[in-house]
């Protein structure tokens, strides 16, 4: 009552208009961007330009190289090494599919069922990164060694007969076959699949599952109609993070494969470091980059997750 009778304090006019203070923070965002931009210019843009010019040079190591706009290098490189290109895409795609099949259930488990084990399983997923990529790949050489327990088991179970018939293995060997390379790629890139899948699954509101169940969807339908569609961003980023580096990889093919399983990464590596044919190596690199870009663009369009990039 008392508060009601009291008149509200009149709005006192504010102090006389002051000059608006100079905006000091205007340049701050640009200063903060600077280190990153410099880094990109020095270590990404400059090498790209340098490689682009290398790819259209002619000459030899002794006489030096000159830019002669020799675009034929591209044609020659592709027509000579297209089998390795195709192999790279096939191996990387197989490894990506395997990663998805192995990684999705695991990510699902961690996101929805792991409970207090969640952190432990996450650490186990990331733990391989504590060891060098090379050592891990070399370990697979031991695992898949001729006459080793894995090959023995696969042989007893007649799995090698099937894979041999498919052309993935040859005879009693797993090592030095496409299967070994794909296994190595799958193993090495699996965490890159699991982490984005986990992130997008974990974000799904559990009540959506309840709502779908309430609306007559049985558990398998809930997964098909709600969980999986909502995890699509994770599926897309996971497959990209696996497929892109796997396509350009050469370590797995050189350690676990043979001359017949060479990927485009192996060709580029040997052109640069052994044959010393820099223009061809540079041209191959650009073709690979363009091919990956084209495939990824197509994939993202198809999967309808443009908002991801």
């Amino acid at each position, binding site marked *: *009552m008392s508060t*009601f009778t009291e008149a509200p304090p009149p709005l006192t006019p504010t102090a006389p208009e002051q000059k608006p203070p100079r905006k000091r923070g205007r340049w701050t965002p640009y200063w903060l961007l600077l280190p990153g931009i410099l880094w990109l210019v020095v270590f990404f843009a400059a090498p790209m330009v340098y490689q682009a010019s290398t790819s259209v040079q002619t000459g030899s190591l002794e006489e030096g190289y000159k830019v002669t706009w020799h675009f034929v290098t591209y044609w020659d490189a592709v027509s000579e090494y297209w089998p390795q290109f195709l192999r790279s895409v096939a191996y990387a795609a197989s490894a990506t599919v395997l990663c998805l099949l192995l990684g999705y259930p695991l990510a699902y488990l961690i996101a929805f069922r792991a409970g207090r084990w969640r952190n432990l399983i996450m650490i186990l997923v990331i733990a391989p990164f504590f060891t060098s990529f090379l050592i891990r790949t070399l370990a697979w050489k031991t695992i898949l060694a001729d006459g080793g327990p894995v090959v023995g088991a696969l042989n007893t179970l007649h799995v090698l007969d099937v894979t041999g018939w498919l052309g993935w293995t040859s005879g009693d060997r797993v090592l030095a076959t496409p299967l070994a390379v794909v296994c190595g790629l799958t193993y090495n890139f699996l965490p890159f699949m699991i982490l984005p899948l986990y992130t997008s699954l974990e974000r799904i*509101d559990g*009540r*959506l599952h*309840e*709502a*779908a*169940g*309430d*609306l*007559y*969807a*049985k558990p398998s*339908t809930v997964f098909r*109609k*709600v969980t999986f*569609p*909502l995890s*699509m961003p994770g599926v897309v980023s996971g497959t990209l993070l696996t497929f892109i580096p796997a396509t350009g990889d050469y370590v797995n093919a050189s350690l676990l494969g043979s001359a017949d399983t060479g990927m485009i990464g192996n060709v580029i590596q040997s052109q640069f470091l052994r044959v010393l044919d820099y223009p061809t190596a540079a041209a191959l690199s650009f073709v690979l980059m363009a091919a990956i870009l084209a495939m990824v663009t197509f994939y993202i369009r198809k999967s309808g997750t443009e908002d991801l990039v």
Partner: protein
Amino acid sequence: MTTNTTKNQKAATDGGGDVRLAGITKTYGSFTAVHPLDLTVPQGSFFALLGASGCGKTTTLRMIAGLEEPSGGTVHLGDQDVTALPPYKRPVNTVFQSYALFPHLDIYENVAFGLRRRGIKSVKKQVGEMLDLVQLGEQARKKPHQLSGGQQQRVAVARALINHPKVLLLDEPLGALDLKLRRQMQLELKRIQTEVGITFVHVTHDQEEAMTMADQVAVMNAGRVEQLGAPADLYENPRTTFVANFLGTSNLIEAEVDTRSGDDVVVKAAGDKLVLPGARCSAPAKAGGKVLVGVRPEKISLTHADDAGAIPEGRNRITGRIANTSFIGVSTQYVVDCAACPEFEVYAQNIDRDPRLAPGAEVVLHWSPAHTFGLDAAQDIDAGVAEGEAA
């Protein structure tokens, strides 16, 4: 919608669509969320489960939906025992607290979800009708995040109702809306319920919401139903202090039974004699026994002590001094300090305001004995006060 309405009513009459909970209970470890509970929700009624957070109302609702497995007891829908059925096999749909709309589907597909899961191919007509019922025909192709809270709420209702469930469960469906929209949606939901004739079970902590919308209200407290009845009956005849304090405000006075005269009980409270109808006294009224005498603040008239002679005979009277007043437009709320009750609340309509009724004034509070109720004194006099304020 008219054809659907008749269809539903027909389905209702042949199966018998009551929701019957028999001895249903839920425990989590050593904590009992819901004590064994028997409850029948009549077919076609708008039923509210009202209580403060943590009273077990949502758990009860989730057990009807099948989202929570009861620790004991059974759930019947009509003649069918659904206790063991998973949610997707129950003819029950839920409007979730946060709506839980599918963010990857547009409004149309959200609403069509249940029909499609039951293998119904041509959903266009039904979805169109349902969207019209909730006035969202224009928004069919929008995604949920493009709609306002109120619109999302209506989609959630439409998505559940389109399946013509035997029971529609609403879990605090209006909790996220602002006050004005909430009032509007309360009327809207009531309209829809009347139109489709489906049983609604509505969980809420808002007593006004429950009273506005429901035909029957069950007031829950600490996993038990305190009292069940029509809103006006609950309000006028609370049987426990919790209900008296949680539903609106009550002035409770500790008193001693003096005599019984005919149908009335005469009690003494701090020297004043009060009369209440025996029928409204839920405590045993033995001479010398203790009772809590209650009266709602709006039933009381306030007269300045100087005019005490003008008060008609036969009314209950208590004298006191005004401690505080607050003017809230349609009414003025007074807090009066009396010997029998230190903070007696009185709401007076602002028809003719007596300027003498200011803090410090000596006053007489008087009300009709018929507006007085009696409660068992062996309860916490303040039960439900804090919960009522929080809600």
